[in-house]
């Protein structure tokens, strides 16, 4: 399961792209074009394969002056969902 020290990374073949034709950002993956809501985009922008989940949550809480516990739940749930679909690699979690 995903924890504070988990380091998420987009695997090769999964990448963020701006969708100029329709607006907004998408996650491009094998046979998938996932339209990202603004929150998901803010999360994935911070996923670079070096920072931990806790660091992503801290940064989001600071940037948006929002409740850290709520963000923590939302971010972990979202990242786990992507990992379950093989769209995200998780390392450093036991």
């Amino acid at each position, binding site marked *: 399961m995903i924890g504070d020290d988990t380091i998420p990374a987009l*695997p*090769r*073949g*999964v*990448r963020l*792209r701006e*969708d*100029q*034709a*329709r607006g907004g950002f*998408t996650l*491009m*993956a*094998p*046979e998938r*074009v996932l339209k990202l809501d603004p929150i998901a985009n803010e999360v994935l922008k911070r996923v670079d394969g070096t920072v931990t989940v806790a660091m992503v949550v801290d940064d989001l809480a600071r940037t948006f002056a929002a409740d850290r516990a709520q963000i923590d739940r939302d971010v972990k749930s979202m990242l786990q969902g992507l*990992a*379950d*679909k*093989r769209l995200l690699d998780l390392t450093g979690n036991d």
Partner: protein
Amino acid sequence: MTDGAAIDPPLGLLAELTHRCPLSCPYCSNPENLDRRSSELDTLTWKRVFAEAAALGVMQVHLSGGEPTARPDIVEITAHCRDVGLYTNLITSGINVAGAKLNALADAGLDHVQISFQGDISDQADHVSGMQGSHARKLELAAQVTGLGLPLTVNAVIHRGNADRVREMVQFAVDLGARRIEIAHVQYYGWALRNRDALMPTAEQVRTSAAAVDQSRTDFAGQIVIDAVVPDYYARRPKPCVGGWGRRSLNVTPAGKVLPCHAAETIPHLTFPNVRDQSLSDIWHDSDAFNAYRGTDWMAEPCQSCDRRDVDFGGCRCQALAMTGDAAATDPACQLSPFHARMIELAETAVAEVEASPLDTRYDYRRFL
């Protein structure tokens, strides 16, 4: 007929770069009249098509065939697709790709590799592909793909000869390190229609293969994504073919014809435009062929008043034509179609005599006619 100006841009483009292929699979999705090498678009024209596709709003390009790497310019084309911002997916037989060619494609920015597998047992797989030793060569490529860290999809086409091995196919894909598998029951157009009696699974196989997909989704959760294409002939509702005619994607043939789906050319009264003559944007928005079955105005009953008309769009136009003689009719895969019983009868006839072993099945292999 509808007004194409209001249509959303397509998300995907399937580029049949060539119809040449070392394999002869009897369910090939290419048309029966294959384009010859002499009629293929040149490199510059393909590059223009991909630039136009990106400008039109296409996000993903599927470099397919035939065997797309049979074209000597495949690396140049892949690099160009990345340059114009497209996500590049190689759909390959896996023959003559391993080694330096795959390395060059990966360096050019290839995003994803999809390898067709004709089974998980080599002699059965080679029997279906029509090429001795093909399975082993696919395995070699798959290992190189995952070794490079590229995402691998195993494309498993399901028919009577392998429908009992769905669970094993998923395990096989997991063992290869694939992130995704397509369990795709044969769709009966073109070559597959010619081979329908040899390919049709039994009703029992359809039930057990569906159960195997469900069980595998549980057992391999988080390890592999399973996308399943259900078999039409045993369905109660039709599939929303290609997400609806001219709604989400388009195909370009080796010779440059632009189609809403693989089989669209079987509809004789439609004239499909060519990228040599018109821009992709004009074709997508304004051509009669793409507008022919958009929206719901063209539908007859029982589709017209059906609450699922915006869900499945009446199913597949090509299948409707092939079985009813009318491309605007309800897809016979729908149980509301007056031709539905006929479709079930065809399936039952096809499986009246089942071979003792998959190796005994005789196919009419795909070839240049």
